């Protein structure tokens, strides 16, 4: 019997597993890496152990031993699908909350797994030898890969060779195995997956499907169940269930797993891979079935058998992944302090609910760094119908107070409100074909005005004498407050607000401002932090970066300087000081959040300075190199 569980993971999934453990009266052990010291998940555990990395199996097992844990839950990612780790856990006499190492291995190599599945009668796409591609488009995948990492779509034969090579290099560095393979790429397909639960006695539940077609960079952003596509074809669900059951049975699978398929609009589907672990998007299934999947994971690991019949699903659930990223700038990961993360109407955290669920890896005060995935939280809405679930979720997101790094919130809301999404037209190219990049707030200037007036009220409250803000007996000009991209010119006089035409100031405090625009009252809530001002209103949330009145007197940046566009790690450097470089020539590669970013020469010249080494962590704005223009 399990009595104490170590979660070999971090963030929301660690907190998620802890929540169920507490309900089952199990003790919990959290592990944390250096940068996660004091983070929300580390504080959540009954006992907390520092580990050098979430990838160091021996340290994790040692932590379990020292803290008295008798079971290890791997969460997802990190070592969740590492058979060697699973084996080491078992060898240490601990309970592994997951499938057998053999099952993990069977699905670990994508090429081998596909063969196995084909033999079991599961539909698969043909492999294409990367060196013998004849028909395009194809997708290149790493044999040992997962999570979308390193996948490349090739539509032009001239690019094939180079793409294959770079995929191999990335696979080698990321997974320690350079093997890649190609598959025909299905344009506009759907990602459908089946949640399975299997006990040690041969019972397999198929707990409905999830559709996860809305993706960016091959990574899921919105997941839902049931699938709008599957709903359209009456027998498709049963065929998917049969295939999933066959897949699980073929490898003697035990515990929670997910069988992933690609499906086309005609309802045909092909095996993609099996994830031998709990999925990020498992709460969607929990919402419609009421099943606590982690509870079953622990019970199955304890030898409990499944009931004969899986609980039937009802209603519709949609999950969104709230990321600290900038969709407008290539999904660039964002870092910084999360000052506030409040989603209105939450009915449960880390547990199934017929309402709104929040699984957050961060709390107010958490820091989002560059070391790990920038997902802040998952929010799941359940409703009797799909349209209602989408509306509930969109509304909660739109009104959420998210103060901190830039997020994909506005994009999520725009997707959830998009007619094509609401009509169930949700293929994997959704974000390529629909422009949902516009911010929700139509009038950023009004929000900036509210922020300026709140700041004026705050300055007034701090003043020696509480006279009207910016009072002048001889007025000569408007006051100016500057935010990144917006100047607000205003003055508060006895007669009211002067400056923006058509706007009246009704009340202003440091936190609340009410403006009247064309006779309509608009209420703004303002939160001020050292590096940002967050303005929340039903008109859309706006985050403003205040610009000081004076330039900081830092040293000037020399011409031709290349600054790190984001925080990350320098992975490779292709040049050395004194090299002559051409325009656009790659100089070095920065890795941030599973993506490699090329830093290229902005113009022909000589590498005058190279300020970083491979492996070095850099902050945004760090001077990487200086390319001096060559004299004619």
């Amino acid at each position, binding site marked *: 019997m399990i009595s104490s569980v170590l979660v070999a993971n971090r963030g929301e999934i660690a907190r998620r597993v802890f929540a169920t453990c507490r309900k089952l009266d199990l003790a919990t052990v959290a592990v944390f890496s250096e940068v996660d010291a004091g983070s929300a998940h580390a504080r959540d555990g009954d006992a907390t152990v520092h580990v050098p990395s979430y990838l160091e199996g021996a340290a994790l097992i040692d932590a379990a031993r020292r803290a008295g844990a008798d079971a290890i839950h791997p969460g997802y990612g990190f070592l969740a699908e590492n058979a060697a780790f699973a084996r080491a856990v078992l060898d240490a006499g601990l309970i592994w909350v997951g499938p057998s190492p053999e099952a993990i291995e069977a699905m670990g190599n994508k090429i081998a797994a596909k063969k196995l599945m084909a033999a079991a009668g599961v539909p698969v796409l043909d492999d294409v030898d990367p060196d013998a591609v004849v028909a395009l488009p194809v997708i290149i995948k790493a044999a040992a890969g997962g999570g979308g990492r390193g996948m490349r779509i090739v539509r032009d034969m001239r690019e094939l060779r180079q793409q294959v090579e770079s995929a191999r290099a990335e696979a080698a560095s990321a997974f320690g195995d350079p093997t890649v393979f190609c598959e025909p790429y299905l344009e506009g397909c759907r990602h459908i997956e089946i949640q399975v639960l299997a006990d040690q006695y041969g019972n397999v539940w198929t707990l409905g499907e999830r559709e996860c077609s809305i993706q960016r960079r091959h990574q899921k952003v919105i997941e839902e169940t049931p699938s709008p596509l599957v709903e359209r074809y009456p027998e498709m669900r049963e065929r998917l269930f049969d295939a999933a059951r066959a897949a699980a049975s073929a490898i003697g699978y035990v515990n929670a797993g997910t069988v992933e398929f690609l499906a086309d609009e005609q309802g045909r589907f092909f095996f993609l891979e099996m994830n031998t672990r709990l999925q990020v998007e498992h709460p969607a299934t929990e919402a419609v079935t009421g099943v606590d999947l982690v509870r079953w994971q622990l019970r199955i690991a304890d030898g409990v058998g499944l009931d004969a019949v899986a609980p039937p699903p009802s209603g519709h659930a949609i999950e969104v992944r709230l990321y600290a990223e900038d969709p407008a700038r290539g999904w660039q990961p964002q870092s910084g302090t999360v000052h506030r993360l409040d989603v209105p109407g939450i009915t449960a955290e880390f547990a199934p609910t017929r309402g709104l669920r929040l699984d957050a890896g961060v709390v107010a005060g958490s820091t989002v760094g560059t070391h790990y995935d920038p997902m802040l939280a998952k929010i799941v809405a359940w409703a009797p119908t799909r349209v209602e679930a989408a509306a509930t979720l969109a509304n909660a997101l739109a009104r959420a107070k998210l103060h901190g790094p830039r997020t994909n919130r506005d994009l999520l809301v725009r997707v959830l409100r998009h007619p094509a999404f609401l009509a169930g037209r949700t293929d994997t190219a959704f974000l390529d074909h629909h422009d949902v990049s516009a911010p929700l707030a139509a009038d950023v200037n009004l929000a900036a005005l509210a922020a300026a007036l709140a700041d004026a009220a705050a300055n007034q409250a701090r*003043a020696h004498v509480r006279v009207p803000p*910016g009072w002048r007996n001889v007025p000569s*000009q408007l*006051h100016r407050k500057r935010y990144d991209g917006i100047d607000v010119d205003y003055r508060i006089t006895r007669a009211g607000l002067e400056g923006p035409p058509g706007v009246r100031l009704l009340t202003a405090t440091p936190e609340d401002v009410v403006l009247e625009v064309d006779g309509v009252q608009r209420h703004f809530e303002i939160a001020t932090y050292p590096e940002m001002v967050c303005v929340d209103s039903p008109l859309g949330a706006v985050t403003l970066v205040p610009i000081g009145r004076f*330039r900081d*007197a830092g040293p000037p940046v020399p011409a031709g300087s290349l600054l790190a566009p984001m925080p990350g790690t320098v992975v490779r450097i292709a040049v050395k000081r004194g090299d002559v470089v051409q325009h656009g020539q790659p100089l070095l590669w920065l890795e941030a959040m599973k993506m490699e970013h090329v830093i290229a020469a902005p113009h022909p010249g000589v590498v005058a300075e190279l300020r970083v080494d491979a492996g070095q962590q850099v902050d945004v704005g760090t001077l990487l190199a200086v390319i001096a223009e060559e004299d004619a």
Partner: protein
Amino acid sequence: MTALASTVDTRSAVFAANRDAMLAKLSEIESEHAKAVAGGGPDYTARHHRRGKLLARERIELLVDPDSPFLELSPLAAWGSDFTVGASVVTGIGVVEGVECVIVANDPTVRGGTSNPWTLRKTLRANDIALQNRLPLIGLVESGGADLPTQKEIFIPGGRLFRDLTRLSAAGIPTVAVVFGNSTAGGAYLPGMSDHVVMIRERSKVFLGGPPLVKMATGEESDDESLGGAEMHARVSGLADYLAADEPDAIRLARRIVTRLNWRKLGPAPGPADDPRYDEEELLGIVPPDLRTPFDPRDVIARVVDGSDFDEFKPRYGASLVTGWARVHGYPIGILANSQGVLFSGESQKATQFIQLANQSDTPLLFLHNTTGYMVGAQYEQGGIIKHGAMMINAVSNSGVPHISILMGASYGAGHYGMCGRAYDPRFLFTWPSAKSAVMGPAQLAGVLSIVARAAAEARGAPYDEDADATMRAAVERQIEAESLPMFLSGRLYDDGVIDPRDTRTVVGLCLSAIHSAAVRGTTAYGVFRP
């Protein structure tokens, strides 16, 4: 809590008429203020901007804390003279990095920022305010020096400018000079005498003698930069403590200097403050346009003091002068306000006692003027009105607590003195547009002249020319009326500015806060009282 009840009927025709008259006067004042703001006019302003320079008021706006108040002083200086309204300099009290400072900024769009006699008086007044109230002084310097045609009025008294700077420093009051452009010849001593000096690369020019003068004096060939450039002063002479890249950078440096003053106010901090119970807007309708009609100053007090809370002292004695205790923006004050215009012996004795009480409790005093002066007539002379008026003037003169005077209506004769007129060194003196101040009312003055002339004619046995008398009286009345009006008085620096009555609470609050930068101490030392 002793809340005042308002006697103002805001729906009455009298209130409306008073208000209309006040608004008309205010709009005249505002158009004169606009002249000061316009400085040298659109052409010079545009030229100044084209050179990448900020206007005097733009420099001040950048210098003071965001959304902080700025109390401009003497904006109407030089009104009625040959010089531009405002006297080519902007002075005032602003908050820099949380520190209330006196700011003096030359307006280089007006005749190159040259100083005329009014510029000098306005600047000296600002220096006095800095010294009396212990306020750091920041000079935003860009001046072509003295206005040469009027040098006789400037050169000799102007030496005080430099003396003031070092006396401020000696008194522990920091002085900062930010040199935006020319500050040459005598002007070179502005940075020279300041504690902290910021100069701007390729902009500041500070030397005793320019290249032509040097050539004449010694034959040496030189240029502006080597004689007085910012780089030279920062690297070679050491006159500049900080070298700024441009104007905003210079202002940034000035703010950093103030931050590092580690300034602490010496006066007690204010308590909590409630707003008055009555709308300050109603202050427009209290003073009648004809100052012969009295008004109750409690209606003004009720709209100025915290919570309209006023504990009146000796309400039944000497009732023509209202005295009592209140707070403004949390600062305790004693108030003396004329009620029926005339000061009798009782009022004078009451005022004397009240001023002494304020000095015992270190409480600043606010004088609200509406007086026609001390009572005349045999009964009052025999009753000792001179002695009693003298007592009051003695108390006012020697009082150690800070005084603020507001001229609401009349401020005539020795009443102006007893109520702490300009010559009695109130820390601040502001005027409402409705105010008038002179030795006596225009009609009275003309009448006195007429009686004297008539008596002289009679003594000579000459016939008295009644037509000429009427003409003389009309002319004198016009002249005295014009010379007793706020703009005229403000132009001659007899006040610190004409304010909107609705701003009274704000202005008094800002003054009290500035005043409390220094310690607030009463005195026990007075001249000999004649009881």
